[in-house]
């Protein structure tokens, strides 16, 4: 009984409050409805613009990736580095021979690998029986003559790999020339 008496005055109050909330919400809708509608429209327009910009960014990124790939494909056809492997019995002159051969074939850097693979005789002609002089501290004479011979060539992406046979020339051979 006590509980009912306590609840009765509260129930109409609560209903009045709910009705007040509803009427208040309707009133606010009346007052600010137009503004809200224009804000919603603006938001939709901004969403649309953002989507368009995002699409544009995606297209540009794709285009950029394509161009980067194209550029990298173009570069992969060019010789950017020459790697020389020397086959010889000389223990101390390996690096010197390598650097000398690298100097000789330096003009091929930047050239098309396809062009070189179609004309390997150019490299062969350049290195065929070519004699280079190397200063060797381990040798008694001070300088040794080395005769080069091209053995193999290979292309590894943008690297031209050359195998060269190097033979020390005897002093009497030198005098004959």
């Amino acid at each position: 009984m006590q509980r009912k008496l306590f609840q009765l005055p509260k129930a109409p109050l609560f209903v009045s409050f709910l009705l007040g909330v509803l009427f208040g919400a309707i009133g606010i809708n009346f007052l600010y409805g137009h503004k809200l509608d224009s804000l919603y429209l603006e938001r939709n327009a901004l969403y649309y613009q953002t989507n368009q910009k995002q699409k544009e960014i995606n297209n540009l990124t794709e285009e950029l990736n394509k161009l980067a790939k194209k550029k990298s494909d173009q570069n992969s056809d060019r010789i950017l580095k020459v790697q020389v492997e020397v086959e010889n019995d000389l223990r101390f002159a390996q690096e010197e021979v390598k650097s000398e051969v690298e100097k000789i074939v330096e003009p091929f850097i930047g050239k098309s690998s396809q062009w070189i693979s179609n004309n390997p005789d150019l490299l062969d002609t350049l290195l065929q029986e070519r004699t280079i002089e190397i200063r060797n501290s381990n040798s008694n004479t001070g300088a040794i003559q080395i005769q080069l011979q091209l053995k193999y060539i290979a292309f590894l992406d943008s690297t031209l790999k050359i195998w060269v046979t190097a033979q020390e020339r005897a002093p009497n051979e030198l005098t004959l020339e």
Partner: protein
Amino acid sequence: MGQFWSTTILDYFIALGVVLGGSLLGGVGAFLADRAPMDAMLGLSEQLKIWALVAALGGTFDTIRAFETNILGGQIGQVGQQLIFVLSAFFGAHTGTLLIRWLFQGSFH
């Protein structure tokens, strides 16, 4: 006031109340549901018209049954009364739609 006129007026206001109340509270709901409230109210006022008519007449089947009974019974006067109730409810719903349009657009068109 006779039974006929009181029913006619009641139907008119029931239909009007359904459209007005549905639209106004629908607008509040639309705002809570992150949609444009005015646009939702105008849409609802059009959509609720037919339901307001049905609600005012107390269900479509009863009215249709009354039409059938009266026509088959030869009571043309009763049929006319039913038609006036329908028209009254229709005008009530339409008035509600026009009021909502007028309130938010500033014109009846």
